[in-house]
Structures are given as structure tokens and as C-alpha cells.
């Protein structure tokens, strides 16, 4: 089937600040992308404040955008009827950054597992037990080890795996993972990232991986979209985007990755960190123009459209 799994069209969300919240800036600015039915891992990458978390909330149905629509399997997710909403919840799940924040520290973790199974799948207690046991097995845990336990009784890596298991219980087609490994020790990250690759290969689950870490993004992604100040500035196949680095911002991001091999260059090159000014969000011209080393007159007047360079789309006047 060539029907798209997920379509985001022109998503825009304004937040207000200042007196009475009157000054509005777009945290997400005309973001569009598609995910096909074939299971894929799409990374949405960017630094903090680029709008990726807001975008995640919109895609999960938690935050209605001011403009634009999200279609899941052809249906607009903000116009679903009650039964369809439950169907959507089963199909699309999420994992969050802070494992200990994911669960209520005053409740036992199994209450969420049984709760998910009960509310979304309607299983009896016995069936639930069996199903949970099976899913926990996939993440390498035993149900007897997690029953009646508080999140604080586990290590961060374990809680994150429980969180993944919870997301897998309703047999979703799409999982949104928001910085799932940034609070996990480096030596344990691979376990979880490899798990994502397995989910795609073996269980046909597509994943939207939100991160600021381009190295892990390279490791697991098929496609990547780079966000800056609410806009997608470059998107396409992960290999090409990250290795060719067409957009100046992508180039700056990739070259700032500390890697033992590029020591000399990393320490010498001039670097231009962005200022987190709200005015950057509001700029009518290219948002990166202020600090871009390749800027020209046009960049300071007009916002570039997404130009195509092979399979990659770049929002930069250099590629007109």
C-alpha cells in the first residue's frame, strides 16, 4: 500500500510571551513531512528550543496546532470520534526522555502496564499477565522482577526499558521517542538503540526519533529532518544529510560533534553559537541568516523555500 502512515502538513504553533502573552512567536513554523507505510526510523534533530518537543506533542495529539493538520493513516487526528481516538492511542505511542519522570514516583510501574492493557486492549487480568510477560521479554525483563515496585527501585536504563515495554503493549505502528537515551549512560545506550532497530525490522514499527545527538541519529535513522527555530531546514536520507551537510546549520552541527579523530579542527575552527533570541523566531527572512557564515543579501530579505538537491530538501538560498 502506498498510503502514507503519517502526514504532517504545514504545522504551525504559536506561543505567546511578554505582557499578557501578546507577542506571539511560532515554536513550530510550517513544518511538513511524510512517513510512508514501510517501517522507517525518522530522526527529528535540533538543539534545544528548535521546536522538536512541541512538534512531538502535536503529532501525539496532545497539542492542537494553530495551523496545519496531521493525518494518520489518512485520518485527521484532531477530528477523530471517540472510538477512533482509542484506535489512535493504540497505533501511536511514545517514550520520553527522563525515565524517572515518565512514571508517577508514588505509584508502582506495573499499574501503568496493566492499565494500558486494560484500557486500550480490554484484556482480562490473566490475559494481561501473559501479554505483559511477553512484551517485557522483548526488552529483557521479567514480570516478577517489576511487580509491585516503584520506579525508584530500578536503574535508569531499566526504567527506560519498562517505558518502552509499556509503549509496545498495544502493538503500535508508530512510536515517538523523545530523547530516549540522553539520560542513559553511554555504555547502555546501544542496547536501547539496537532495540529500536529490532523494532523496525522485526515488528514493522516506525519510529520518530527526536534528539540533539547526531551520532546516535546516524546510527539508527533512515531519514532525518534538521530543525532550527521551529522550521525544518534540511531533510532527506540520513546518510546523505549528515555526510554531505548542505545546509550551513547542518554543517555547523556536524562539525561541532566532538570526536577524538578531529581534535585539531574541532579546537581551531571559529564557531557561532546562536543566541536564543525570540527575534530569530520572528524573522521574516531566513532564520539562520544572522549567524550564517554564507549569508548573502537575499538571505536577509526573504525566507528560502525547500530546494531539492538530489533526494535531500534544503531550505537555503545557496541551493536555488
Amino acid at each position, binding site marked *: 500500500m502506498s498510503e502514507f502512515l503519517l502526514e504532517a502538513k504545514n504545522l504551525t504553533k504559536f506561543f505567546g510571551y511578554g505582557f499578557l502573552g501578546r507577542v506571539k512567536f511560532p515554536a513550530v513554523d510550517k513544518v511538513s513531512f511524510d512517513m510512508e507505510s514501510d517501517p522507517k526510523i525518522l530522526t527529528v534533530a535540533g538543539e534545544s528550543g528548535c521546536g522538536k518537543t512541541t512538534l512531538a506533542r502535536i503529532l501525539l495529539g*496532545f497539542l492542537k496546532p494553530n495551523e496545519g493538520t496531521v493525518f494518520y493513516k489518512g485520518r485527521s487526528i484532531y477530528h477523530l470520534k471517540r472510538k477512533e481516538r482509542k484506535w489512535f*492511542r493504540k497505533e501511536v505511542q511514545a517514550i520520553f*526522555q527522563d525515565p524517572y*519522570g515518565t512514571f*508517577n514516583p508514588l505509584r508502582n510501574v506495573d499499574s501503568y502496564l496493566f*492499565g494500558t492493557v486494560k484500557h486500550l486492549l480490554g484484556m482480562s487480568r490473566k490475559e494481561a499477565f501473559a501479554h505483559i510477560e511477553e512484551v517485557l521479554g522483548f526488552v529483557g525483563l521479567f514480570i516478577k522482577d517489576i511487580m509491585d515496585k516503584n520506579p525508584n527501585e530500578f536503574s535508569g536504563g531499566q526504567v527506560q526499558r519498562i517505558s518502552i515495554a509499556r*509503549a509496545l503493549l498495544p502493538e503500535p505502528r508508530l512510536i515517538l521517542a523523545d530523547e530516549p537515551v540522553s539520560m542513559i549512560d553511554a555504555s547502555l545506550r546501544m542496547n536501547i538503540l539496537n532495540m529500536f532497530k529490532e523494532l523496525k525490522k522485526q515488528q514493522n514499527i516506525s519510529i520518530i526519533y527526536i534528539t540533539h545527538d547526531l551520532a546516535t541519529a546516524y546510527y539508527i535513522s533512515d531519514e532525518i529532518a534538521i530543525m532550527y527555530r521551529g522550521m525544518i531546514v534540511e531533510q532527506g536520507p540520513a546518510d546523505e544529510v549528515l555526510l554531505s551537510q548542505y545546509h550551513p546549520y547542518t554543517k555547523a552541527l556536524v562539525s561541532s560533534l566532538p570526536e577524538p579523530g578531529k581534535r585539531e579542527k574541532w579546537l581551531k575552527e571559529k564557531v557561532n553559537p546562536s543566541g536564543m533570541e525570540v527575534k530569530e523566531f520572528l524573522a521574516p527572512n531566513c532564520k539562520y541568516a544572522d549567524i550564517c557564515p554564507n549569508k548573502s543579501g537575499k538571505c536577509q530579505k526573504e525566507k528560502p523555500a525547500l530546494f531539492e538537491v538530489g533526494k535531500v530538501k534544503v531550505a537555503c538560498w545557496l541551493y536555488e
Partner: protein
Amino acid sequence: MKTSNPFKAIIGVLIVLLTFAFILPYFAPYDPRRWATVPRDQPPSGTYRFGTTTVGQDLFWLSSYALRNSITLGVLTAFVSISIAFLLGAIAGFTRSSILRHTLTLFIDSFCLIPGLPVLIVLAYSWRKYLSPVLIALILSIFGWAWPSRSVRSLMLSLRERPFTYTALLSGFGMIRMFFYEYLPYIIKWLAVSFLGLLNWAIGMETTIAVFGLSSLEEATMGSIIFWAMQYQAVLRGIWWWIVIPILILMLLIITLYELSKIAGELIGAR
């Protein structure tokens, strides 16, 4: 922590005060509110442990009655205030409708800004003919609910943003389940601390307006004792016990309630 000495001491004092206020009045040999039941202006002694007032009341039994009234009035105020505060604050924090949220917030904030004491004085003065402890409690509640309501609202808002709220939503939990299972422990802690805080506030407020002569003066309250003591210029005339003793009892009560609310904050509920 639970059975540490300060905790035991506070509970002990509380028990003494509550016994004094609620059990002792049944043993009063006479109606302590009535004037001229005992010799006047007697300093504290074996017979009259707290001394007597200028109008011939036994301060010991009078205080006992008054404390009961003050505490009851305080509890009533706290209860009504918390109920209003919780209702309005929870809706304001929980609702998705931004119109409702902004309207309620404006409403709550306005009440926070209205200067309570002057308005209370005016109200109490206008209705002074009908003042009873119950009416006073209701009048106090008009202002008692505002600030706690703000804290409920922000509690709700912050709970709504906690990641586990999203996890619960993704697990198919409805709003009701969210409220009672996920949020309740946090809410209970707030309730316990706020209740004791409001109780303290109400007792103090009642005393304040009583000292202005705007409380129920026939029904004894701690504040009314002080009022009458001031009316009769007790301190100038050397009848120090008439003012000092009620003040000491009040201080003891307020400090105990405050310490209790601190303990409640640590023991009960979340974080």
C-alpha cells in the same frame, strides 16, 4: 522522624489544648459567659487558676469556652474556604478551555488582591446585629479561599505538565482516573497543609476583628475576651491576666498548628 521528640511534644500540646477546648467545657460549674458569677479582678490563684475578669467571669472556664468557639469557627472557615478554593482552583488548573481558565484565574486573582481586613471590618460592622460564630466563619471564608485557590491552580497546572501525565494519557487513562489515582497523593498533601494553614489564619483573623469589637461578643471567643479586657482597660488597671492569658493560649495554639502543618507537609503525600 515520625516518633521524634519534637513531634511527640507538638502532639502532646495539641491534645492538651483540644481537651481544654472541647472536653473541659462540659465540666464547667457555671456558665462562664455570664457576668458576676465570681468575685471580680482576682489574680490567678488556687481557686481561680486563670484569675477573674472585671465583670466577674472565671477566666479559666471562660477561656475554655472561648477556645472551643475559636477553634470551631476556624475549622468551619477552613472547611468552607478549602472547598471553594479546591473547586475553583482545580477547575482553573485542569480545564483545557482557555476561556474558562482565564476567567477563573482573573476571578481568583481579584479576590487575592482585595484587601481582606478592611472589607471584613466593613461587613462585620454592617451585619453586627446578626453576628454569630457561624456567620463570622462564612464572612471569613469570603477571603480565605483566594490564596489557597491560587496554589491549587498552580499545583494542577504543574501536575498536568508532568511527563507521567502524558504516560497516563498514552495508557488510555481518562481524566477521572488521572485525578483520583495519579494526582490524589499530591492533592492530599496540599489539603492537609492548607487546612491547617487556613485554620490558623481564620483564628487569627477572628481575633483581629473581635479586637475591633466586631465579633460575636456574647458568645465568647478568644478575641472577644481580649476585646472586653481592652474595653475595661485591664492592663492599665493591673489586671494583666485578663489580656495575657488569652494571648498566651492563642500563641500556643497558633504555633502548635503551624508546626503541625509543617509536619503534615513532610509526612503526608508527595515529594
